[in-house]
């Protein structure tokens, strides 16, 4: 690590110098480009349709979904040689009711072949306690707790006949960054080296992810809506976060 840092410090000025000399048409190591990430919301293999479709949890209980929103942040790309690129200020709110939120565009990405992608499901610790934020982190997005400041990482609201709450409501607001109820989870997946994420100045690849809302209720703990139908942070939110940590996202394919 130390050595590579020295190497980088040594190389940086050289790269800058060379980049100044070179003409625009030449493809160099420091060119940048764009790629997109598409999030296709599903429930256990079926398309996610808000308000109308009925789904079943692992306990066989029916449910419908009215709201499904989640944060994807701090997106990191890694190359086979181990170099990692953290996309600066990468905070995105995906909202199943807003189809244009389901595809995000990442700009100014160094060109190259990436073999791993990693991101936070939610918002990192520091931003939860930072001052007034804007854009995806604007409190007007309905993903900020005002009484216990911090972001709701995943918001799921719906109904189930099994729910004992008023109007059979399901309210799962997952968030909180303090132990013992820290719900920050990281999604990470290797990309098939035969078809890596190839970012080129003339190629803007698309990564296609399947997002399974049903993953909130199964995995480590199968949840019955008769016993758990409401959580806004705390120990029950940790149960849900531990469920979706592994099952919420799956990289389906890449269009290079």
């Amino acid at each position, binding site marked *: 690590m130390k050595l590579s840092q020295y190497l980088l410090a040594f190389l940086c000025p050289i790269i800058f110098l060379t980049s100044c000399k070179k003409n625009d048409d030449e493809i160099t190591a420091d060119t940048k480009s764009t790629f997109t990430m598409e999030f296709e919301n599903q429930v256990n293999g079926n398309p996610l349709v808000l308000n109308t479709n009925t789904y079943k949890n692992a306990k066989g209980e029916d449910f419908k979904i009215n709201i499904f929103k989640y944060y994807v942040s701090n997106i990191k790309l890694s190359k086979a040689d181990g170099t990692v690129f953290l996309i600066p200020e990468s905070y995105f709110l995906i909202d199943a009711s807003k189809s244009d939120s389901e595809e995000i565009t990442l700009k100014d990405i160094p060109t190259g072949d990436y073999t791993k992608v990693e991101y936070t499901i939610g918002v990192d610790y520091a931003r*939860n306690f930072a001052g*007034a934020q*804007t854009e995806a982190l604007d*409190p007007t997005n309905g993903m900020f707790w*005002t*009484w*216990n*400041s911090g972001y709701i990482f995943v918001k799921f609201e719906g109904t189930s006949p099994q729910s004992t709450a008023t109007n059979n409501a399901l309210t799962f607001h997952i968030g909180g960054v303090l132990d013992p109820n820290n719900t920050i989870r990281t999604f990470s997946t290797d990309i098939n080296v035969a078809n890596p994420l190839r970012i080129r100045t003339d190629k803007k690849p698309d990564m296609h992810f399947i997002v399974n809302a049903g993953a909130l209720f199964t995995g480590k703990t199968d949840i019955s809506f008769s016993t758990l139908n409401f959580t806004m942070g705390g*120990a029950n939110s940790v149960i849900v976060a531990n469920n979706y940590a592994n099952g919420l996202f799956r990289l389906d394919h890449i269009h290079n």
Partner: protein
Amino acid sequence: MLFLSIALMYACSKNEDKIVPEELKITFSVPSNFPSPAYNFEDNKLTNAGFTLGKKLFYEARLSADKSVSCGSCHQQFAGFTQLDHRVSHGVNNCQGKRNTPPLFNLAWQKAFFWDGGVKNIETSPLNAITDACEMGTDIETIVAFLKNTAPYPNLFNEAFGSSEINTQRVLKSITQFTAVLVSGNSKYDKVMRKESGATFSSVELAGYNLFKEKCSSCHTEPFFTDFSYRNNGLDLVSADEGRSHITGVSTDFGKFRVPTLRNIEYTSPYMHDGRFYSLDEVLEHYNSSVKAAPNLDVRLKNGIKLNDAEREQIKAFLKTLTDNEFIKNTLYSEA
């Protein structure tokens, strides 16, 4: 560079020639007996225009659901920015909140806000009061929409931020330019500590200070007169308000509340998280004889704090040296 220095020289000489006094520059000043603050305006440059806008928003009742309540309604300057004579905050539609309004000053040194410490940044603190059904009963979208359509706000945002765009971040940052500037550090106590213009305690005040250091300051720590911790002070065997555990989810935090500052305590009655005590005598009597053996009672209060009549008078005399009239009466902070 040459032009710049000429321009600077010109600016200097021009200022000296001015007869009309310049508008007072709003500054955030750290009293010499205070440590360095937690909030330092690094990402929120303090300007006169930002402060002026923040103050106007603070006193703007039209931001609340029924247009009856501003921040300043429950945070009154003459009461150290808490609400005089109200046990609990009095919000929209005559709704009574569940806790006593906390005073607002020296917030730049505070890392958590409200009685339960649920809010961790001064900038996001107003959102709690804005959205609470028993406080302002509204939401930030409604407020932003109102401000966009109400003169002179677009102009004021332009002056403060360089464009007339109005969003959550700008609303909150400007309010913070007002609230974080509220520094109370010119009480008699402060002047004695700073050995300013020969300020000294009277013998009763000094006796009170010594008693205070012996019996109170382990929680009400100088110079803020709070150690910012959460404690149960035995008001009830079983607290009606869960307090800190509402935030942490930890049962040992049940019935704990943030140790309140004692600065300006002469003006911040009633006292305690639920405002149950109207006088300092009641507060001292509680510690003297009424501390209940609650499960999470602070160990230091197990035997209460015994005080005889003379000691109580001394303590009260000292507490009144924490009154900062320069702050309470500073018209810079008053509703115009």
